[in-house]
């Protein structure tokens, strides 16, 4: 068997793997990316496509600001002809209890201190601005008008396509079977089709699959899957309905650029294992009843499609971006349901770390050792 060599190997063609491949290839490095199926087939393509600057920790806000700086011109930068459908119709966190509103106020104060234009709205202000919303029982909301939506599939595929244009080798439908290590260092990967590739640096960005992959060389990455469901309606007239996240039962809804509506909702009873991509019937009725009472104008609209995808969850709902104890092996995973929007900043910091540059933000909070040390890093603005 012939062994192929490269400088960097990336496992996983989600937004983080593809953005990192793009950053490396653009800077002139030799990189090969492996993806089991098609680019965006994991969490990235199944996400709710929301992007926001509503976080409650400085490092997430720092990176979120960077993402929002990149998105407006990204379609032009990647120049692939794919429509990224970036829209800034806003993102609203709706509180039904005092403790919830207090937390939102704290988050907004931190955001304002970092020049993010977030505001707290009263129920009357919300009613005046969005008369079609029936948010009975709310006591206030946090809103940022710069936040919005991006097409998660074209975003991921365009990063991959642009990476390939800069010379990255992008191997779709090529699952990695295991990693190879020698003398305490990473050596490369073996694919299920039997190809062997060697590189001194390997990045695992395989979402919840990062754990079983890392385990093939004895490294434990505490990330696990958790199924979440979404549905989409037929298109209706576009009225720029922002993302509305209701903090009573976790239901959310928003209009997409093509006029369709997306609904989602938390459900603690959903399966937590890999390979569970089916659909929940219970979800469909539950989310519809919850959302329709808040936006009754949609009652005559039809639901067209439903799907599910795995959240990539860690114990403290924050990502892991770090070198592992095995020299040359790095991970970027565990984004816990908010990772799509971090593609631009995630790609940038991974490229910086892989080539030995200083990352543009301090990534100490995202380190792998925090789980063993019991020094967890909780993100209060988590859905």
């Amino acid at each position, binding site marked *: 068997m012939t062994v192929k060599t490269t400088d960097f190997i990336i496992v996983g063609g989600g937004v983080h793997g593809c953005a990192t491949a793009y950053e490396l290839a653009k800077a002139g490095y030799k990189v090969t990316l492996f993806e089991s199926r098609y680019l965006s087939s994991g969490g990235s393509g199944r996400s709710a496509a929301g992007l926001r600057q509503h976080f409650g920790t400085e490092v997430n806000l720092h990176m979120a600001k960077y993402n929002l700086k990149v998105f407006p011109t990204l379609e032009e930068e990647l120049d692939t002809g794919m429509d990224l459908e970036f829209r800034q119709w806003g993102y609203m966190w709706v509180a039904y209890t005092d403790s919830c509103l207090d937390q939102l106020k704290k988050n907004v104060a931190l955001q304002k201190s970092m020049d993010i234009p977030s505001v707290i709205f009263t129920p009357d202000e919300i009613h005046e601005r969005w008369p079609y919303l029936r948010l009975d029982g709310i006591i206030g909301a946090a809103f940022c008008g710069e936040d919005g939506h991006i097409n998660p599939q074209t975003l991921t595929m365009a990063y991959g396509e642009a990476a390939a244009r800069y010379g990255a080798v992008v191997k779709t439908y090529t699952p990695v079977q295991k990693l190879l290590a020698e003398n305490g260092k990473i050596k490369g990967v073996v694919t299920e089709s039997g190809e062997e590739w060697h590189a001194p640096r390997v990045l695992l960005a395989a979402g919840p699959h990062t754990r079983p992959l890392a385990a093939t060389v004895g490294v434990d990455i505490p990330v696990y899957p958790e199924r979440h469901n979404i549905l989409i309606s037929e298109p209706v007239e576009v009225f720029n309905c922002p993302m509305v996240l209701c903090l009573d039962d976790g239901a959310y809804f928003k209009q997409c650029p093509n006029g369709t509506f997306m609904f989602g909702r938390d459900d603690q009873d959903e399966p937590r294992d890999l390979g569970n991509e089916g659909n929940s019937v219970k979800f469909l009725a539950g989310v519809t009843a919850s959302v329709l009472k808040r936006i009754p104008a949609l009652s005559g609209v039809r639901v067209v*499609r439903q799907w599910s995808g795995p959240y990539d969850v860690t114990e403290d709902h924050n990502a892991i971006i770090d070198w592992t104890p095995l020299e040359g092996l790095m991970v970027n995973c565990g984004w816990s349901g908010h990772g799509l929007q971090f593609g631009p900043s995630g790609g940038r910091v991974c490229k910086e770390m892989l080539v030995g540059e200083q990352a543009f933000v301090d990534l100490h909070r995202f380190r792998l050792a925090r789980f063993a040390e019991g020094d967890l890093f909780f993100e209060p603005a988590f859905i």
Partner: protein
Amino acid sequence: MSEKVNIICRCEEIQIEEIRHWINKGYTNLEELKRILRITMGPCQGRGCRDIILREISMATGKPISELNTGVIRPPVKPIKFSLLAEDN
């Protein structure tokens, strides 16, 4: 904007030329074309366009349609009004 003439996917207004452009770039799987162009994701869920697109992929790759990935049809099989779903609850 020029008027679209050879529309294959009516729900998403996608022309045959756009589909061929991406097939020629190497996106020869319906799963990929669907995500780049939104084809088969409209209200008809691809009933109106899936077969024609599969024929194009088959011609470009030389693989018979029976060997191609035909994509997943997601529930509900027929669109349902939200109000009916909410009543069920």
